[in-house]
């Protein structure tokens, strides 16, 4: 992979929610980088903090949530030093200008993410008018262009439609058109296809890939779907309970998953086209409540390779286990293989085999 | 003084302008009228006044023209306003309520049997539109309204004797002859009564014809009766009147404005045409009149307010006298009881009736009441504790013997003596038979006194609350049944009420108040119950007969005798004899406290208001009886 410069470097980001029942460390020391024009997939189950990470970057986390530590260095404006978004006042004009024009976001629920009282054209134009010095007519022109770009049929007509008149897929196209209308350098896509049907999902994913190629923006793609991540991402960060447990390029992750959680995830989904009568592999137990995170490695109670006395007491650090592949697991630290009190992990099963 | 001078000037200029047309310009008029005369819009004052205007002697001094009299009336029927200006009957009560004086009628003559009467009317009186008033205006009322079956106006009290109508004959434009089938010596007294007797019987024929179904294209008599009826007659600015002021504007439930009647037929002793005051501006409240009066009164926004000044507001009103630049004159309410407690002798429970007809029982009820406490708590101690004994101002009490009698009656059984009450009850067997703490009937069954009070009569409720405590203290279980006004009548007529408590009222004996001391009419305020009165009134066809030989029957008989006695003195003596039944048989209706003073708020520049007045009664029509046309507002101060 050619050394591209990074558009975003997140280091040790901590976003905590200070609720009446206690502190919820939704994001608890997350670090990753996104390359210019590249795609980072963020993979994780519900409650792992992947969405909060996205929101933290755009500084959209509202009280009682708060970024308590870490840096979010964005190299879109100052390519050398970058701006630390974590240090900018979330309510400042500077941050507002950044949103939508530098970094844009697409959400999971296209059905509710648009204001029902305004036409989609109006809402796209709104994004343009607040960031670009153009007339209304020009903004309208751009909006139509963007709708055309997202393969919206009859964009001139569609611009007059209200959200409820559009299907979910269409609305997601509008959301994407809106997000891309100011040509952002980074797009955060938070489960953009989860609520969509499989055919529409395929269309949207295809569209996003094409647009990325055309517009050259970086994408941070948040999803829980291994299939989707495989299609979209170049790099992947796997999150579990507010932490990145594994990060690598996409091929390495799928061919050689290292963290027991990643491995288990991959084994627990049915493999399409390989119908077998057997049972699926499972991860035992449930994801713990984020209010009640286990000590040590947060995954240890469910881990098949749990090392007594280590995993339940110490917190593993994200370390490079092989070039371009980072994992946060004691199994990959020197001398720990022998401690195994439970059966060693099953040999990683490559997905690509069938 | 300046004002007076101006009047003289105006008069002089008038004389100059009009020349000495008649050569006898004796009368003065208000400047505004003089202007109109000058402009030719109005005939000269001499032509407007009757041949012999009624001369009114001012209470203090000759007044000044001008000013607006602001006051509050309590509803759209404008009762207070009518009592002020509509006291223009055949005759008018004297200012001290002692006898009456000529008004529209100047003289009359009875035959010895009191069956034939000739009445002479003042000549030359004009309606407020200038049309002359003649006896035809009275005859129209009698023939075309009372006697016309299509017009729902009934013959009023006094025009029938023993159920038979009088007949009226016109002798000339100003003389009428009345014939009665039986002796009717009280007829002229009825005609002297306040706002709703003869004062409304003289109607402007020339105007009313236009609304009469027989003389116009009116479909029915609705419009006619509206212009006649007490509650609505003042709502029509075009309706001619004989009063000192005439309606110029009426906004329902808001305001009634009256201006001087340029044809008013009275003058002061210096020949100034009355009234002095230009305009009456009367506010009609939509809620409580007493509250509005209190507020406006203390703010000095009322020039003279006679009614609706709450007794309990007296300290408040007194305290603000200086700030509001007014004085408070204490007139009397002229009432006899607040409340009067009326046992009903037509209650469908023989056991209760047995007790009601037992005078010891009623005496016990009366002695059990702590009247002083009621007075202290509800009337600032300003009233008098007393029995039900009519108003002290009644004519029959004006002689020394009358006074003595009155005192005796008022004091009868009125002392607070719970022990006596208890022993009286014990004596008739009303004792606690079952040991539940309450006295029972002589037959041992439970006794419960149920007193109906209309919800709006808060004064009575407050007082009866105390009476209830007193009665319960002697062991008589009492229930206060507070009911809506609307229900009272129906319950009365159905005989469902055991005891009724009624608010303040005034009564002057034979003419004004017969029904309250003798059951002769089927009305709700009848003593002993509406149905007992109805029995008398219908000659026994309807209603409930009083028990034979009972005090109620005695009272009815006494009344029958009284009304045909021609000689006034003999009548008065007989009347006191009838009253004696009330003393001998114990209280028949139970009185509590009465003779309240009634505060009248008068601005300091509002003059010629006499110190005496009786506020409660409509018969006497105060302040009308105090001649409001000679009230004036001092324009200098």
């Amino acid at each position, binding site marked *: 992979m050619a050394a591209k410069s990074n558009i975003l470097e997140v280091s040790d980001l901590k976003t905590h929610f200070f609720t009446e029942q206690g502190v919820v460390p939704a994001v608890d020391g997350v670090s990753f980088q996104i390359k210019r024009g590249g795609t980072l997939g963020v993979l994780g189950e519900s409650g792992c903090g992947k969405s909060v990470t996205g929101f933290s970057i755009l500084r959209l986390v509202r009280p009682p949530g708060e970024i308590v530590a870490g840096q979010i260095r964005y190299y879109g404006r100052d390519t050398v030093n970058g701006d630390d978004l974590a240090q900018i006042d979330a309510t400042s004009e500077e941050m507002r200008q950044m949103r939508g024009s530098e970094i844009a*976001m697409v*959400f999971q629920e296209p059905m509710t993410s*648009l204001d029902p009282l305004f036409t989609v054209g109006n809402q796209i134009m709104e994004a343009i008018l607040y960031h670009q010095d153009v007339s209304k007519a020009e903004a309208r022109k751009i909006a139509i262009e963007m709708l055309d770009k997202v393969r919206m049929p009859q964009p001139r007509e569609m611009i007059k439609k209200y959200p409820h008149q559009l299907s979910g897929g269409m609305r997601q196209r509008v959301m994407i058109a809106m997000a891309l209308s100011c040509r952002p350098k980074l797009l955060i896509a938070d489960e953009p296809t989860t609520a969509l049907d499989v055919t529409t999902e395929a269309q949207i994913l295809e569209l996003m890939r094409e647009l990325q190629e055309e517009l050259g923006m970086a994408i941070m793609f948040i999803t829980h779907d291994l299939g989707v991540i495989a299609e979209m991402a170049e790099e992947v960060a796997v999150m579990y309970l507010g932490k990145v447990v594994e990060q690598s390029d996409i091929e390495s992750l799928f061919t050689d998953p290292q963290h027991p959680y990643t491995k288990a995830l991959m084994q627990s989904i049915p493999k399409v086209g390989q119908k077998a009568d057997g049972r699926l592999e499972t991860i035992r137990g449930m994801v713990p409540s984020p209010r009640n995170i286990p000590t040590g490695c947060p995954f240890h109670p469910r881990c098949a390779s749990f090392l007594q006395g280590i995993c339940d007491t110490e917190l593993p650090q994200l370390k490079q286990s092989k070039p371009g592949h980072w994992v946060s697991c004691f199994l990959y630290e020197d001398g720990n293989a022998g401690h195994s009190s439970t059966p060693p992990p099953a040999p990683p099963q490559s997905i690509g085999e069938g | 003084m300046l004002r007076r001078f101006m009047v003289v000037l105006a008069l002089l200029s008038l004389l100059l302008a009009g020349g000495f047309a008649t050569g006898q310009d004796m009368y003065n008029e208000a400047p505004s009228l003089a202007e109109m005369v000058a402009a030719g819009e109005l005939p000269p004052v001499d032509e407007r006044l009757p041949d012999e205007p009624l001369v009114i002697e001012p209470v203090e001094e000759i007044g000044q023209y001008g000013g607006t009299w602001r006051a509050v009336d309590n509803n759209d029927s404008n009762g207070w306003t009518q009592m002020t200006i509509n006291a223009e009957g055949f005759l008018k009560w004297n200012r001290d309520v002692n006898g009456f004086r000529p008004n529209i009628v100047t003289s009359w003559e009875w035959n010895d049997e009191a069956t034939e009467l000739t009445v002479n009317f003042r000549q030359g009186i004009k309606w407020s539109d200038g049309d002359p008033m003649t006896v035809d205006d009275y005859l129209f009322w009698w023939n075309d309204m009372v006697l016309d079956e299509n017009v729902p106006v009934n013959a009023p009290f006094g025009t029938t004797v023993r159920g038979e109508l009088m007949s009226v004959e016109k002798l000339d434009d100003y003389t009428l002859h009345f014939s009665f089938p039986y002796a009717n010596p009280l007829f002229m007294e009825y005609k002297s009564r306040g706002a709703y007797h003869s004062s409304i019987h003289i109607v402007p024929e020339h105007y009313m014809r236009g609304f009469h179904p027989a003389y116009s294209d009116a479909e029915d008599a609705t419009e006619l009766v509206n212009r006649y009826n007490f509650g609505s007659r003042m709502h029509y600015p075009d309706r001619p009147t004989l009063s000192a002021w005439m309606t110029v504007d009426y906004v329902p*439930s808001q305001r009634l404005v009256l201006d001087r009647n340029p044809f008013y037929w009275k003058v002061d002793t210096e020949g100034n045409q009355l009234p002095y005051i230009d305009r009456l501006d009367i506010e009609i409240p939509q809620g409580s009149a007493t509250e509005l009066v209190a507020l*406006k009164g203390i703010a000095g926004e009322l020039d003279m307010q006679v009614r609706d000044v709450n007794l309990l507001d007296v300290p408040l009103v007194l305290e603000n006298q200086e700030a509001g630049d007014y004085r408070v004159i204490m007139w009397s309410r002229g009432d006899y009881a607040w409340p009067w407690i009326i046992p009903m002798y037509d209650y469908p429970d023989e056991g209760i009736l047995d007790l009601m007809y037992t005078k010891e029982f009623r005496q016990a009820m009366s002695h059990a009441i702590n009247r002083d406490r009621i007075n202290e708590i509800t009337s600032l101690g300003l009233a008098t504790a007393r029995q039900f004994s009519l108003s002290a101002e009644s004519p029959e009490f004006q002689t020394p013997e009358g006074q003595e009698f009155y005192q005796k009656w008022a004091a009868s059984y009125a002392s607070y003596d719970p022990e006596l009450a208890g022993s009286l009850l014990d004596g008739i067997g009303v004792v606690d038979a079952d040991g539940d703490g309450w006295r029972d009937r002589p037959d041992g069954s439970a006794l419960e006194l149920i007193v109906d009070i209309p919800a709006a009569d808060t004064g009575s409720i407050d007082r009866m609350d105390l009476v209830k405590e007193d009665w319960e203290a002697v062991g008589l279980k009492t229930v206060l049944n507070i009911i809506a006004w*609307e229900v009272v009548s129906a319950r009365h007529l159905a005989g469902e009420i055991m005891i009724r408590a009624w608010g303040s009222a005034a009564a002057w004996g034979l003419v004004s108040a017969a029904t309250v001391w003798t059951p002769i009419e089927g009305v709700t305020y009848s003593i002993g119950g509406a149905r007992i009165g109805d029995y008398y009134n219908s000659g026994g066809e309807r209603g409930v007969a009083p028990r034979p030989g009972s005090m109620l029957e005695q009272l009815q008989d006494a009344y029958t005798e009284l009304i045909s006695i021609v000689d006034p003195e003999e009548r008065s003596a007989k009347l006191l004899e009838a009253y004696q039944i009330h003393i001998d048989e114990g209280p028949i209706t139970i009185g509590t406290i009465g003779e309240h003073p009634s505060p009248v708020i008068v601005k300091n520049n509002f003059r010629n208001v006499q110190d005496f007045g009786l506020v*409660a009664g*409509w018969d006497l029509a105060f302040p009308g009886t105090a001649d409001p046309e000679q009230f004036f507002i001092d324009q200098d101060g």
Partner: protein
Amino acid sequence: MARYILRRVIAVLPTLFLITIFGFLVMEAPAGDYVTSYIIRQYGHGNTEAARIEDEMRSLLALDRPVYERFVTWIARFAQGDFGDSFDLRDSVRNILSDRIGPTLTISLATFVISWSIGIPLGVYSATHQYSKADNFLTTVTFVGLGLPDFLLALAFLILGWQLTGEVLTGLQSPAFVNQPWSLAMLLDLLKHMLIPVLAVVITGTAWVMRVMRGNLLDQLGRNYIVTLRAKGVPERVIIWKHAVKNSLHPLIAALGQTLAWLINGFTITSIVLELPTIQTVYLNATLQQDVYLAGTILILIGFLVLIGTLLADIMLAWMDPRIRYE
């Protein structure tokens, strides 16, 4: 849209008819009729003579006819635009209402406009500063405002006004201005008199608007589209006023349906306490006195206004909300 409105109108007509019948029955139900109530009031004022004309009055007013007959006659005349006469005020219902509609609307509209124009911004402020000191303060004040009966406030203000100015500001005009042509002084006098009722009613009205606005806005601020707006860099002020507020007007506009009737039906007791020449006071008295045609007409008027109000609210909602418009 026209069909939609037509269908709504037709659907509500039976309701209106039921209201009419029901209203008439309700007024007829208590014991006695206008005449008994009149006579008893006359007694109350010491006029014991009035009972003598009971039968006359009853036949004069046709109150001796059976209920259904009177109802049918009245409704038939009503349909021809003749609302009948008031027994008590002895004037045509039409005149009475036209006399009073002006003052009624003057006060109620002023009250309405002020409470909404204060209530909405305060509600917005409260919602956007949820749990701040100001919000807690406003919330508490709102609850107090909702807990205070306006007529009690009116009475207190009346006394306060008297103590401060020495004037008793009942009614809508000082006597000096009665029947005078319009002038600046008269206008000032009117404004002075309006101050107390408007203030008393505005306090409770504002509290209500604020409460509703706050709740709805909080609900809207939690919606996804708000996040979208923030994410695309729209200034917060625009997000709130252009988007969230517009979306949260929904229940307020729905409440407008009732508001129209409230304009001639609200603050009845306050009207009485303050002697306001409004329809409310006529209505209350007419009901108490069983002045059936007057009360009945106002009742139908109110029912009609509820109907019109609901319709208008629906149309406004449709105008504002494409989801309804394109139904």
